[in-house]
């Protein structure tokens, strides 16, 4: 099966993730949307690894997963730190840098 369909599916998922980041107010949901975008990119890499007969795509996906795990750990602790001081996870609440 050609990777085209996988590319289109990943494009849809990536777009949904992007719109999620742009519209959702809850920092956690926005963060999950970022994860969705990472997963969409992973899907393309795995699909092309199969189509081109090359395992490098799968390796790249593996490294993306590792980086995502590290990113989630730090991101969630930042969200908790903000929640502790502001009592809110809304991305609009943290506006101290706004002029």
């Amino acid at each position, binding site marked *: 099966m050609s990777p085209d369909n996988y590319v289109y599916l990943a494009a849809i998922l990536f777009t949904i993730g992007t719109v999620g980041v742009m519209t959702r107010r809850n920092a956690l*949901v926005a963060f999950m949307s970022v994860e*969705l975008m990472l997963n969409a990119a992973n*899907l393309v890499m795995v699909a092309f690894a199969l189509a081109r007969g090359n395992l490098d795509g799968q390796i790249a996906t593996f490294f993306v997963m590792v980086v995502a795990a590290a990113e989630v750990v730090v991101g969630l602790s930042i969200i*908790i730190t903000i929640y502790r001081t502001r009592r809110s996870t809304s991305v*609009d609440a943290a506006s101290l840098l706004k002029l």
Partner: protein
Amino acid sequence: MIPLVTGAEVTFWIVAPLMVLGALGLLFFRKAVYAALSMAFVMVNLAVLYASLNAMFLTFVQIIVYTGAIMMLFLFVLMLVGVDTPDSIVETLRGQRWSAGLAGLGLLGLIVFGIGGALAGGPQVGLDDANAVHGGNVESLAALIFGRYVFIFELTSALLITAAVGAMVLGQHARVRPKPTQREMARQRMVDYAASGLHPGTLPNSGVIARHNSIATPALLPDGTISEASVSPALTSRGVILDSPALSRATAEAFAAIEGVKAEEDEE
């Protein structure tokens, strides 16, 4: 020519709509927990797609790392920050939702027609040869990770340690002022008593009324009003405290009725 329907295609057409539905749940569920669960659903489906794409190692890494660790971490944090806070639907920027949707459509078009169009076609090789070199998918991946990509692999370990230390630093909160000792707290209570007449002793019990003695029952003062200090402020703000005067009035009425009957019997 007979149209060849492979297992991968069947899997794709079953799993892909489910994935899109789950991803849309991330956009449209008001509650963050539902969004997290639909995200976990998307990730499990993605693992199924990996399996159909000859990536058995990634299938299990996806389930263990993403669905097992990352999404559960999200759920833990949701539990910490409170699951009951729905997303506010007030738009702080006017028309943001529509423009975000338009931008999303534009991005979709860009990816599908730009990148997708450029990548369409090309050779279909399959992974059988690449996997056969070292005897299997996991073995071939291991040969790559510990061969060509070993330096990147070592770097990721540094990254993970940095992330763990960073999370620890962010997670602990430094004390702004030293923790008061018992002696200091006792002195502070006496200072408060001298300054504002605040009672220095323990707070009053919750009320014990004939049929109610829960902590949500306020105690009654001698003049029949309730004592605010006898119930937790959390219960008061939640609005679950009972109406003690009414409860004690019911008891008083029951007693009065009994006394009335007794009085009538005595008269007879």
